């Protein structure tokens, strides 16, 4: 059983909407389980967090993590959908993966997503923005 099948069988009850492609696995996971999934991917099977992508969709704000299993070239991409667009909140994974610190700060900066238990949730890129626009990527989409 390879890493992907093993992962699916172990976490079958916690993941949904699987999309399986060559060396890519996308799936949806609830906010309550994201730390457990991260712990498994990062600490148990040795994945590296490449980055995370935020996107505003009709259903809410999505945070899509990209974990790379370098030994096999496989990508595991857990997706958390935040339905509360006015007050988007999600559990931070920075305490598990130090490398997620800037990635989460950028999403807080550009999308206004609050990461619960993030050790330093500050603006990363637009701190001194002269225009004073907050959450620029969401602002433009709403206008």
């Amino acid at each position, binding site marked *: 059983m390879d890493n992907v099948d093993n992962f699916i069988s172990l976490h079958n009850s916690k993941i949904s909407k699987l999309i399986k*492609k*060559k*060396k*890519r696995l*996308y799936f949806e996971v609830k906010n309550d389980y994201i730390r457990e999934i991260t712990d498994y991917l990062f600490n148990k099977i040795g994945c*590296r*967090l*490449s*980055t995370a*992508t935020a*996107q505003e969709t009709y259903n809410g704000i999505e945070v*899509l993590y*990209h974990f*790379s299993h*370098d*030994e*096999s*070239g496989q*990508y595991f*991409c857990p997706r958390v959908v935040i339905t509360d667009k006015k007050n988007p909140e999600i559990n931070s994974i920075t305490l598990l*993966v*130090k*490398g*997620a*610190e*800037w990635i989460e700060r950028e999403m807080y900066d550009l999308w206004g997503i609050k990461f619960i238990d993030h050790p330093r949730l500050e*603006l*990363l*890129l*637009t*701190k*001194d*923005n*002269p225009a004073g626009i907050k959450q*620029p*990527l969401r602002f*433009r989409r709403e206008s």
Partner: protein
Amino acid sequence: MSKNIIPVGPFHPLLEEAEYFTLKVDGEKVIGIDLDIGWMHRGHEFISETKTFTQSLYLVERICGICSTSHPLACVHAIEDIDNIDIPLRARYIRTLIGELERIHSHLLWIGLAGHFIGYDTLWMWAWKYREPVLQMFEIISGNRNHYGMMRVGGVAKDVDSSSIPKLYSILDDIASKMDMIAKAANDDPVLRSRLVGVGVLSHEDAVRFCAVGPTSRASGIPADVRKDDPSDAYDLVEFNTIVMKNGDVYDKLVVRVLETLESIKIVRQCLDMLKNINGPILNDVKEISPGEGIGRYEAPRGEVFHYIRSDGTNRPVRHKVRAPSYVNIPTFEASCIGIPIADALITLAAVDPCYCCTERSIKVVDSARQPTKIDLLKISREKTEYLRRQINGN
């Protein structure tokens, strides 16, 4: 002993790009570092969503002047990943050829800068002089010395002219002999070794914790290389070694880059051999991109460059995420700079080959309350090298 704060940047003579570090020092020792980025954020991800897929390639090519092939290459990989688009064999070799030439010129640029930072100005001038022929090769192949405009979804834009291949071989032979000389010089020089060994160590655990990539992680013993782990283009058809060291210091990062340059020369030669012998199309006609999402990555000179694209079936991406290698490598300063003397701070900061135009992707005003440092880090770094040189040479 007094605790002081040394601000470096955002505009400083030793920084090629706008960046801002706050070094907390206790006497001569660095005890803390705060990193402030965002001085060059240009909103590429948002702009890309207003462009067609082909226009996006030209846009991402301009994220960085050095990695001007890595970004479009990762971008086409992401678009091709949506529909599992295959590309012609000849195009695969041309993509690999361009990518490896970029690695050679990027590493030579870094070797030159590293030499300059520690007072080896001869190494700096040699490395930059021998980088010039690589740019000539680009000019012969693409017509441009930088921003080559070669990548297309489904292949490449221009073919390599068979009449130019003998000239490319000749230039490559010249570069190879000069690289051997630089590699030997770096290996044999006792001053260089004593100046860089044990400096700015990034442990294996910290490299894993910070999710470091590229030569920064390989110098710390992590054998990750996208070209081997998730091969695209012609990387599964050419032979090369992944260079991995174990100490994670600046010297190991230098060795990784020097040896990688030699490996890249090997790959370029194999690509030229194949291009001489095989013919065929260089571009598959891709009419449309289906709705879906795709991940593209490429081993840029600084490490994995990552692009994520989501398509809704139109000719534009609805989301385009870009993550450059320096974005994950720069935070490792928090681990590698603590406890080192100020004289080593500069070369340690430079050792990850940070690229800020890649890392950030709004224009910011400079806060007038921040004053540039009066401490000349470059001078201190060079004085330490000179001190070691005198000790070793006995004068």
